[in-house]
């Protein structure tokens, strides 16, 4: 039985559609997969709001001009449960954001992965199970 089960479970991809995977909204409708972004910036404000948190950062462009970007992230409820409060990301913090830009081309993007300047993943330094494990 164990062997049979293992074989069946190897085709896990076939089962994914059976799980409730709805997010709050369609990210594909808001962000453009053809516009990947990776930027370093300084936190100017935190929008600690549901359904999504927003991190505002000042980013210096190649021409030296500073542009403010809005970065969309997960809900503060879940971050609070990780032990991460608004105070854990003070204004002035330097962070690196990887994600995708908004479809309308504005200075807005999804923070698919957000790190401190020293490489530590943001939020994962708290009490989250597996916080120090491999990224999933």
């Amino acid at each position: 039985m164990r062997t049979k089960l293992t074989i069946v479970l190897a085709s896990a991809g076939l089962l994914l559609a059976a799980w409730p995977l709805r997010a709050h909204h369609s990210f594909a409708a808001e962000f453009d997969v053809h516009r990947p972004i990776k930027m370093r910036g300084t936190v100017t404000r935190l929008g600690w709001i549901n359904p999504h948190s927003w991190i505002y950062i000042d980013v210096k462009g190649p021409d030296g001009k500073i542009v403010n970007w809005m970065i969309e992230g997960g809900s503060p409820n879940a971050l609070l449960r990780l032990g991460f409060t608004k105070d854990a990301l003070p204004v002035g913090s330097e962070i690196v954001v990887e994600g995708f830009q908004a479809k309308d081309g504005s200075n807005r993007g999804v923070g698919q992965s957000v790190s401190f300047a020293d490489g530590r993943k943001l939020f994962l330094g708290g009490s989250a199970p597996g916080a120090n494990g491999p990224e999933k």
Partner: protein
Amino acid sequence: MTRRRFAPLLPMAAVLICAPAPATGQSDFEGIWTSASVVPLERPAHLKGKEFYTKEEAAENAKRVLGMTSWERLGSQAPEHYNMSQYGLDLSQVKVAATLRTSLIVGPDGRVPPLTPEAQKRSAERAARNRGHQFDGPENRPLQERCIIYSTEGPPMQPSAYNSNLQIVQGTGYVAIVQEMIHSTRIIPTDGRPHLPPDICQWLGDSRGHWEGHTLVVDTTNFTDKAPFRGSTASLHLVERFTRVDDDTIIYEFTADDLATWTRPWTAQVTLARIDGPLFEFACHEGNLGIANTLKGARAAEKQ
């Protein structure tokens, strides 16, 4: 945090009532609970006819599901989506009640019954009406994107992709259920009063509760066509049964009946596991920048 991450495995086919009853004689459901599950609503095809795992198989299934990456969980949304586990939203980061079930739907089939011809026609017409108009305006967007109701908050209540958290409060003549996602509170009178007149429809329907021994039975009617549950109509009749089986576990069962939609009634069973609180406010509408941004994206795409 001293609680175990998994509630004990329960042989669902033989539920024993062992929770203490309060002085009122009613079972005590008060507390904060999660419906998070590693079991899908419908039974996968390869498990046809197998309603329960063995204990070892259930553990292996839980390990497999919790081992998926957040990208795998998100399926088609993966490329643009943020990393769920980085934001504490991954299933592997929350308490999940263990179960021997292979699907939430009970019975040998484990599937939602076929849609009636009438329901198939209705569903096709709805899809045709919306095709090409999904981004015309906020009214065309899903209810959860508009922060009105979340698709899994119910009734009937189902596990969500994340934040499957709810709170139950009991008072004299009432039971209230608060859902963290998106914010709704369902107030259920248990004083024997009748349902609202049939011409009054509500987003969450109209619930009335009564006690059958230690089980709370909630009967809900007065649904609206604007919030169909898997294609149902306003005629949906839902019966939910809450049974406390130990200090940390409630068996929540619902039976959905709508002859205008399904060829027969069907029943699902969800295990609610006690979690530490608090439940947080989810002021969805006030912070919903996503709906405007989605429409801006659509307008930009139209100009290309």
